[in-house]
């Protein structure tokens, strides 16, 4: 760390180094992805393998498959992909609200925590995909079932991490709030939730990937619409380039969702990162 800063410091002062460092950063950012895509593009260019079509064919099919239609509302993107995402976010949102609320409740009450902990640990340990067949019994294969599965699957990581976060609150600060008679909502929003937020966000991050997995699985396993269903449909009807396009779209969706998550959590946890840095610099 220290050697690196020493080495770069004199470089910066030289003229024209700013553009050079920008070019370097751009190179570092894009070189490997471009190499990999180029490898795929040229490696598959003359491919006659039916299952592994040239990337150019996949890309040529991509736009008409997902965005082809008279109006935007007619496109597969609006018909299948957006509803999938909305269902996912609905389930995820419900899980966040209930997970944090129940987590705070359980985390602040010692006896309740001891009472529920083994049960919660068991429910958390059930691999969430198993829920899909179970919930199909109760709710059929409609959108309610998918939202319910996503909600339950996303609930445990948020819930248990909130419990841990609330439990691990700084005891000195805890006593301080008590001494200053800070109670009720004010204590919750000014002390408990911010103090537990790093843990809560760890749970929310785990939940997000579980939510995406469950969104896809619930559609692949049982359904008649949605992104996961479309991909499996393409695979079963041997529409191979379209299937590859669906896989790429699903991958991009994961990337975009995690980027949005990153932006939001960076804003929420700004104080925490600053705190960590000051701790590190101080010691």
């Amino acid at each position, binding site marked *: 760390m220290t050697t*690196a800063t020493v080495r770069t410091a004199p470089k910066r002062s030289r003229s024209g180094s700013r553009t050079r460092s920008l070019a370097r950063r751009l190179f570092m950012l894009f070189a490997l992805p471009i190499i990999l895509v180029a490898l795929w593009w040229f490696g598959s260019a003359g491919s006659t393998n039916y299952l592994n079509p040239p990337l150019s064919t996949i890309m040529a099919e991509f736009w008409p498959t997902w965005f082809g239609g008279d109006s935007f509302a007619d496109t597969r993107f609006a018909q299948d992909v957006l509803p999938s995402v909305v269902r996912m976010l609905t389930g995820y949102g419900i899980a966040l609200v209930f997970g944090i609320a129940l987590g705070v409740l359980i985390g602040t009450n010692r006896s309740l925590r001891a*009472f529920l902990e083994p049960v919660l640990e068991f429910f958390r340990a059930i691999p969430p995909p198993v829920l899909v067949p179970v919930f199909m019994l109760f709710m059929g294969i409609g959108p309610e079932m998918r939202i319910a599965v996503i909600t339950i699957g996303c609930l445990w990581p948020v819930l248990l991490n909130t419990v841990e976060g609330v439990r691990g609150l700084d005891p000195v600060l805890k006593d301080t709030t008590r001494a200053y008679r800070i109670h009720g909502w004010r204590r919750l929003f000014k002390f408990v939730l911010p103090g537990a937020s790093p843990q809560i966000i760890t749970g929310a991050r785990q939940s997000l990937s579980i939510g995406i*997995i469950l969104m896809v699985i619930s559609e692949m396993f049982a359904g008649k619409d949605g992104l996961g269903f479309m991909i499996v449909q393409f695979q079963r009807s041997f529409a191979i380039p379209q299937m590859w396009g669906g896989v790429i779209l699903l991958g991009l969706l994961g990337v975009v969702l995690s980027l949005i998550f990153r932006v939001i959590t960076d804003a929420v946890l700004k104080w925490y990162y600053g705190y960590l840095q000051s701790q590190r610099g101080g010691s």
Partner: protein
Amino acid sequence: MTTPRRGRSTASPGLPSWVLGAAGVATLLILLELLPLLGIVDPRFLPPVSQMFAALVTNASTPEFWVALAQTVTTWFLGLAISVVAGVVIGVIIGNSPFLREFTASTIEFLRPVPSVALIPVAVLLLGTGMASTLLLVIYAAFWQVLIQVLAGVQDVDPIASDTARSYRFRTVTRMRAVVWPTTLPYAMTGLRLAASVALILTVTGELLISGDGIGGALAVARESGAIASMYSYVIVAGTLGVLVNVLARWVEQRTLFWHPSVRLELVA
């Protein structure tokens, strides 16, 4: 840090936590037994828990059950082992070179959030519906967990320790063993713990959707044939497996990190 907590726990009135925990489990079992019996929940959808355990005993007396269980555990273990080894080796190599770290950062950041279930159709087409497809899913999901943690661990190496090692002209191997590895190990263990449960999730997913064998496959078969109590018995098995995986991962973590302050503090407390 530890003394006030201990003081509070002895001072707090009420029962010890394991009694409360046992009471919680008992309450859940009683609820699951009574809800269908009283007709609050349709027993066709949620049979009494006694029937679930009866089905579990029936299933467990067949060899097929143990074959399925062995399949699930094998896929889980193989996938986890491969991703841990690959994650640690690649993570240490990339993490030790500032150039490689910067060069691969964008690609890793891009590939990591790609949901591994996106690979299901590709895996089925290219690898068929056997164990290899499920393994691919498991490895893809678990590998990133380990890699990210190992990268963070290598980066967390104390610069003073690193410089000291350099001043004393440690050979690369010695530096790795004496400086990089002790810092990275706790991170790698966190990665292992996360990867272990993710690997189980993807193993069951693969069995449900692709291969139709193992515990996931048995569960799907039970549901399709209307053996609902039997289906729930497999849910119980899957959950128990998940608990065991968590316990095992934590045990390995404590065993390998017995020297580390975080574990030593816990033991004192």
